[in-house]
């Protein structure tokens, strides 16, 4: 199993310890019951750790670390299944830093200082990836989906058009913009922005004039890889909880973990988990190369499938208690559902993968 360097171990330990001290899964339970209230106090503490600027340059107040360090961080955050939009916020900071304009730098400072929660919004994949567009001085239509958006104050949206195409910040109370979200099973949310005759001159543009849609295309890759990393941590903890249970729960006079039928299925989960982990860390190596998007979609698709397969078996191995709300394993199951769907579910990631890969049947390696 890929091992951490010394500095990565520090990141991993601080992330794992932080969320345990913040209340671990008990906090996740409490949040769930107060939805759509957002745990601002926890968010401020997360902000205080400096993690949101993980991928932003030091000159802009970030930590200027690499994608691998971000994955190490998120893998260990994922162990405690928090629903705060850390991946989205890290991606937003990454995007804002790219703009290199005063407007973007100010927002970046707000985001990293905890003043504002800002999340990136993708294109509407349901409509084969169409961006919002300025037509006759108005913006109409819906964006792609955003996960865990109910606490967000503003969103980063690419809006196309003949003139004034660019990356915009859209505050949640903008006239004509409906921030529409639904509760998800884990206490998070999923939704989108709906634009109705929005006057683009009322929106703030963040990108420079010479920037194109392509300059922001890797935001989707960071989201994919980040969510995949969260799922690695989720799998690790869910499997630990389950194997511990299998060592103590007795039936027929023996711990159920001694039964070969269950041992072999557990081993299969381990194989799926560990190989997804290798793929996620391989995608970190591909980050910044021409295979970046391909690798990130592969990592998300594979991790999401492994995660769902794993948590299903975890419930099964717990038996009836696993089906109760009281049992923590169910929290992992529900978070897995949300993360698997967020930012492109496995089918969607494979569709994108195939699209990027071109015609699989003709191309070589």
């Amino acid at each position: 199993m890929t091992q951490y360097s010394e500095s990565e171990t520090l990141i991993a330990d601080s992330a794992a310890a932080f969320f345990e001290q913040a209340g671990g899964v008990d906090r996740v339970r409490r949040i769930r019951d107060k939805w759509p209230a957002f745990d601002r106090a926890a968010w401020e503490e997360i902000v205080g750790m400096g993690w949101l600027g993980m991928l932003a340059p030091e000159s802009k107040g970030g930590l200027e670390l690499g994608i691998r360090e971000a994955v190490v961080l998120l893998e260990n955050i994922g162990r405690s299944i928090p629903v705060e939009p850390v991946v989205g916020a890290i991606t937003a900071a990454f995007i804002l830093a790219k703009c290199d304009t005063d407007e973007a730098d100010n927002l970046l400072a707000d985001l990293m200082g905890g003043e504002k929660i800002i999340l990136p919004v993708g294109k509407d994949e349901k409509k084969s990836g169409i961006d919002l567009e300025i037509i006759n001085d108005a913006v109409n239509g819906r964006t792609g989906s955003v996960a865990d958006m109910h606490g967000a104050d503003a969103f980063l949206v690419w809006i196309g058009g003949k003139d004034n195409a660019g990356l915009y910040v859209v505050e949640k109370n903008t006239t004509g913009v409906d921030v529409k979200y639904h509760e998800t099973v884990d206490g998070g949310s999923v939704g989108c922005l709906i634009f109705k005759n929005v006057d683009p001159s009322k929106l703030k543009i963040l990108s420079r004039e010479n920037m194109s849609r392509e300059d922001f295309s890797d935001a989707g890759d960071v989201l994919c890889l980040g969510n995949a990393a969260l799922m690695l941590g989720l799998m690790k903890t869910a499997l630990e909880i389950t194997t511990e249970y299998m060592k103590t729960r007795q039936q027929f006079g023996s711990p159920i973990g001694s039964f070969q039928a269950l041992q072999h299925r557990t081993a299969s989960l381990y194989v799926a988990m560990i190989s997804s982990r290798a793929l996620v860390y391989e995608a970190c190596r591909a980050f910044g190369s021409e295979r970046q998007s391909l690798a990130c979609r592969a990592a998300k698709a594979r991790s999401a499938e492994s995660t769902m397969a794993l948590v299903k078996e975890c419930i099964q191995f717990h038996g009836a208690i696993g089906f109760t709300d009281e049992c923590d394993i169910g929290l992992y199951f529900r978070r897995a559902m949300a993360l698997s769907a967020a930012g492109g579910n496995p089918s969607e990631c494979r569709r994108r993968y195939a699209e990027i890969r071109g015609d699989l049947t003709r191309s070589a390696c």
Partner: protein
Amino acid sequence: MLRPESDGEVKFRLEVRNWLKENLSADLRDLTFRPLPEKILPWCRKLYDQGWIAPHWPKSAGGMGATPVQQVILIEELALAGAPDAPAQGLNHIGPLLIKLGSDEQKKRHLPSILKSDVIWCQGYSEPNAGSDLTSLRTKADIDGDELVINGHKIWTSWAQHAHWMFALVRTGGGSSNREGITFVLIDMASDGITRRPIENIARDEEFCEVFLDDVRVPISNVVREIGQGWSVATTLLNEERIRIGGPVHALRAMAKLRAMARYRPESMDSRIADQLARAEIEVEALTASYLDSLERFEKGESDGSDSSYLKILGTETTQFIHDIAMDIAGDEGARRVPITTNELTADFSEMFLQSMRLPIYGGSNEIQRSILAGRVLHLPRG
């Protein structure tokens, strides 16, 4: 492989690709069975002359001393070109074992001939009553002066009918457990008293044999390490050997076959099959990433010995998964026996599919590997 390649690696990939274009003749491409020795050995010799026959052997032993990435590049390019399956018992098993544990004389005698592919090796481990439960093996070796006299019965011995040498586990007696009293010995297959009976497998291929040993006399100098240390000799390199079994070789060959099948039956292509193709590719990338990760940690001495078990399961089951998709695309032709070769491609319907049924069984069945993971990695209680 998803990671970007260095300039040197890109150059190496191109060198391999171009060399294969010129040197891999049409009669050796896209074969669904391993070709007979008279055909495969000259091919191995060509790879030897090129310096690529043993990428994973250290340079000091005559190998290429290749990095994990170079090894994967070779595997990928060979699979892409449709290169044939080379006999592996010498290069992947006894060779590395002798490099680490053999006497100077044993190394001098055997390593050069393995590299040059002058000699075919077979593995004499399994017996009729010792498969997954290998330590219950009963082939007996009595010490007579400076010789061992061996009597017994080995089975499922791949390519024994062609082999010049066998490395075998035999029982020399003594010790309180089954693991003690086992000896690791090199047997010249030309010795008197050896009878080989090929067994036709499910793919109608005589890939393995039964081997009967009747009073076969072997000099004690052919014992690797000491008499009675055979179990530790055999298991010392087990992790490394199984990491190689878990490499992406078979999965990549299956992938090449799957692509050919998709070209042969374009009418089968729809969004569901497109999704399955993407899934197959992603599975191969997950396998390749796992393999690279294991090799890299193995080289740094960080492998904990469980990698080989998970890779064996992953590599073999990924291969079967890909064959399943190819069978799906083949539609009503899925059970056709003989492959079709056109100007552009070879469409194999059933042969590799049938051959692949051995993968989860050989080299320690996948059930044994799962039990190892359950005990050693997941620490589940013993049943």
